[in-house]
Structure formats: C-alpha cells, structure tokens
C-alpha cells in the first residue's frame, strides 16, 4: 500500500484555493477582461444619450451589466461549475471579442452616429424587433422551416434512391444519366418563373425547387459513392452467400454513406439559397419574405434581426446534419468536426 502525507493533499488543493498573479494573466484574466468588455457595453448604453429614438436602450444596458456579472461569477467559480465552467473558460476569449464588438457597435451607431443611421441600426433597435415584432418573426421562422424541411426531405430521398439505382444498375443509369447531366447543373432558381405558373400553388412550386436543388448533389454523390465501392467487398459478401438485395442494402449503401453525407451537405447549402429566393419572389411567408417586406418599409433593424435568425437556423441545420453523420459514421476516423 502507498502512503499519503497531509502535505500532499494540501499541495494538490492549493491551486484551487488561491488566485495568484499568474492566474490573473491566464484563464482568470481572460474571464475578467470578458466581464469588463460587457460592463463597458452596458455603461456605454447608459452613459451617453442616444442620438435617435429607441425604447430599449435602458434594458439593453442593464442586461449587458447582468451578463458581465454572470461572466465574473462564472470565471471565479468555474472550477465548481463542472462542464459549464469549462465551457465558459474555453469561450472567454470570444466573449472578450464579442463584448468589445457590441460596445463599438453601440458607440458607433446610437451614441455618435459614426455610421450612417437608418442603414446601420444600433443593438437596441434589433432587440426592439425581437421583443415587439416577435409573433410575425416566429410565423416567418415556422413558414421557412416547413417549406425547407418538406423540400429537403423529398429532394434528399428521391436523390438518394436515384443515386443508388444508377450506381447499381447500368440499365437505369443508361436512361437516367443523360437526364441528370442535362437538368442537374441548371441552377434551381432558373426554374422559378416556370415553376410559379405551372404549379398549382407557390408553396408547391417552391417545394419542388428546393427538392430539385437538394436532389442533384445528393444523387451525384450517392451515385459516385455506390460506384466507387471496392469490388473486393462484393466478392467477400458473395462468397459468404450474400444475395443481390444484401449487396445493395448491407454493402453498397453503408460503403457509400460518407459520400452521401457530402451530397446532403451540399444539397442543404444550395437549398437554402433557393428557399430565400423563392420566399422573396413568390411565397408570401417565411424569412425571405420578411426580409423583402422589411426592405419595402425601410425597416433596416428588422432586416438585420431576420438575418441573424436566418443564420442561426441555417447553421443549426448544418450542425444537426453533422451530428447525424458523426453518429452514423463513428467507424470513420478523422471526420471533420463542424
């Protein structure tokens, strides 16, 4: 048995208890700076008078000071907060940068109008949009998600099935490949004028276009994935008694899955573009339409607010896709982390 002395235990506990100068310049220092940056943001809101008429300046300033207090508390008790504390410590440099950015933004717009005003609204104007125009914004978010999800799921499913079919069967490939080559590279948005008068509703037309934008990359990459499966895998499976259905479902598709996910990722990107354009032109709902509407009223704060929401949604969708991929493709080593 090994023995422990009392001095070992205190030596191990010591770094937690006392904050030294080295700590201040290290992780605590960064946390402190982040807190100060957010305090500066809050004070800049409250100290100078606004050059315009915004109703949320006071609450934004107080909110920023509350955030500063939370960061301060979190920084010095990070050791006792478990994962949340570690996450805060890891993101502290970003909190400094972000706090400094919003301070500068506040000062440059609401306080001294260094940036031309209606076009560059201050943070409190955007906060105002989120509090006062929330129902309309939420309606737009749900409309966008509904349209995007429907089109994407249809496009991805059709693309996947088409890709597997032409990758597997030369006969199907003979007929589908030329069509794919002719129609696929055409940007889906080029179909907009035709789609809007041939489809019964603008909603179905947009769903079709989003499905088209998603389907092409998914088809091509699924196809190339299935076609590039090493014939050695098929030989192994066949000598073990596999039938053709087994070869497709248990060999070709799993082997092609990494390619399929690249296609799904590319399809997601191009379908976002189609979604926004379709909403701006034809569909009278969704975030694209909200942007268009805000532009019509010269409501610049609403445009920025909608852009931020849109960015969070798109990024969230891609995160979701990558999480799914990481779960399904645990067997791959060294996959890119999003």
């Amino acid at each position, binding site marked *: 048995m090994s023995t422990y002395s009392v001095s070992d235990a205190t030596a191990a506990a010591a770094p937690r208890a006392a904050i030294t100068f080295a700590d201040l310049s290290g992780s605590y220092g960064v946390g402190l700076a982040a807190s100060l940056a957010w305090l500066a943001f809050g004070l800049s809101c409250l100290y100078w008078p606004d050059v315009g008429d915004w109703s949320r300046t006071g609450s934004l300033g107080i909110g920023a000071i509350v955030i500063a207090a939370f960061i301060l508390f979190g920084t010095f008790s990070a050791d006792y907060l478990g994962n949340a504390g570690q996450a805060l410590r890891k993101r502290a440099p970003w909190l400094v940068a972000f706090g400094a950015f919003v301070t500068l933004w506040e000062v440059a717009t609401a306080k001294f109008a260094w940036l031309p005003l209606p076009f560059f609204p201050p943070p409190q104007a955007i906060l105002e949009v989120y509090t006062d125009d929330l129902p309309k914004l939420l309606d737009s978010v749900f409309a966008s998600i509904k349209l995007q999800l429907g089109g994407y799921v249809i496009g991805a499913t059709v693309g996947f099935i088409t890709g597997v079919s032409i990758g597997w069967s030369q006969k199907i490939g003979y007929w589908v490949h030329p069509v794919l080559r002719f129609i696929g590279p055409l940007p889906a948005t080029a179909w907009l004028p035709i789609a809007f008068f041939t489809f019964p509703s603008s909603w179905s037309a947009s769903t079709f276009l989003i499905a088209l934008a998603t389907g092409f990359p998914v088809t091509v990459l699924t196809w190339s994935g299935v076609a590039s499966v090493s014939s*050695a*895998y098929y*030989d*192994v499976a066949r000598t073990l008694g596999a039938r053709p259905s087994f070869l497709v479902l248990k060999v070709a598709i*799993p*082997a092609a899955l990494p390619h399929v996910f690249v296609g799904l990722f590319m399809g997601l990107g191009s379908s976002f573009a189609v979604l926004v354009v379709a909403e701006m032109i034809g569909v009278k709902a969704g975030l694209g339409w909200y942007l268009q509407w805000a532009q019509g009223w010269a409501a610049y704060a609403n445009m920025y607010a909608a852009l931020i929401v849109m960015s969070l949604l798109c990024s969230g969708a891609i995160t979701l896709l990558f999480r799914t991929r990481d779960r399904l493709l645990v*067997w791959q080593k060294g996959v890119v982390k999003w």
Partner: protein
Amino acid sequence: MVVQSTAEAITYPAVGAELDIEGVSHAFDIDGATLPVLDNVNLSIAPGEFVALLGPSGCGKSTLLRLVAGLEKPRAGSLREDEARITGPHPSRVVVFQDPTLFPWRTVWDNVALGLEAQGILKAQRHRVDAVIELVGLSSFRNAYPHQLSGGMAQRVALARALVNDPKILVLDEPLGKLDSLTRIAMQSELVALWQRKGFTTLLVTHDVEEALVLANRVIVLSDRPARIKADIAVGRPYPRHRGDPYLAELRKQILGLLGLEATW
C-alpha cells in the same frame, strides 16, 4: 517433372470436401487482345488435404482461386466440389484474401457475423460468432472497428469471418502476405492448428516457398502465365514442422529450381 510422394499415410477428417479441377483454361480480354492465364489445369484434392499453390508473380494463381470460389466461370473445363459442379459462390467455399477487406462500418463481431447474416440464419446462430471470435483470440476486441486493429488482428478477423460458416473448402489467397515476419510465423502455426482441428480442405496461394512447405501436405508448382502445373510435390512430414528440417530445405531447393531461382542457392 513430378516429384513422387513419399509414403502418405495421413487420414483426413470427413468434414472437408473433395475438389476436382478438370481441364480448366481461362483467359482475360484486355484491350481487345485475349490474354490466356490458365492452360489446361488438372488437379484433384482429397477431402481435408492442405494444398499450396506456388508460382511466379502474376501467373494466374489468384485466378484459379477465384474460379474455385465461383466468383468467375472458367472458359473451358470444369470445377467440382464433392462431384457437384461449381457454378457460383457458396458459403461452403470461403475465401480469405490478401487484404483482410473487413467492412470498415461494422464492428469485429458484425464482420464475423456477415456470412450468417447474409444467409439469414444469424438470429439462431449467434453463439457461433462468439465461439469463432474466441477461437481466434479476439474476444476483447469484439466491439472494435477495423481501423482500430493491427494488420495481424484484422487478418485473424477475416479468418474468423470465413470459419464461422464451417466451410468445407477454405481458400486462402496469400492471407499472410502483408504481415510482418513475426506475426506471420505465429499465424502459420495458428492456421495449421485450426486446419487440424476443423478438418476442412485448404487451398493456399502463396509466393513464400517456406510457408508452403511448413503448412501444406502437397505443393503444386505452377509455370509462368498461362499457368500449367509444373510439379506436384508431396510434403511427407508430420506437424508441427520445423523450419530448419533438412528434408524441407532440400524440397525448398528443388522448388526454387523449378521457379527458375536455383542461382540464389
């Protein structure tokens, strides 16, 4: 030249199948030209026998194995397993390739289970998968993915994946060719032990004369492409064999001579 067998009195367990290769010729079409690879190969292998095929690189050894496995059909001649003509792949004739070709998206257990799953009998036979993983000594790696395995371990999984089907003929296409020499020697003994225990007929392609002599009852030496049988040599020595055995050294010298490498001795 055919070296006559020294009194062979080994009896084989009845598990293995008899393999008859009769007048088999095969060719490939490459850029419009016909490239003959096998020329009238005749070979009869008794149930439970361990036969090694030796030949110069690219002579058509692996093609012969693909024909035995049923992955391709010969241009002429016939192959029969226990008198039944081979027309396609069957789990009674399993191949272990030079590359383990494990499915990277499946764990060790799922890779080994592949054959039973493909034949639709996995649910009732799960214990066979466990048993054969135990047999190759990889029980603690059953949930590992192939990229986490060493070369020797991966090849053992490939061997387990073949053995779980209880093959009557085990076809080995240079299965140890890419392993380091220490792993290789260890796996040669494992292979002999498995073969003695299970009693399947074994057809091994190798380019390593010593490996052929340590493992096989019979060594078939093939000519340059198109491959013909140049010599059929019985190795009348009990197992486990000794690498330094002067009898094996003499055979090795003869075989290297047949392969046109006598100058190296």
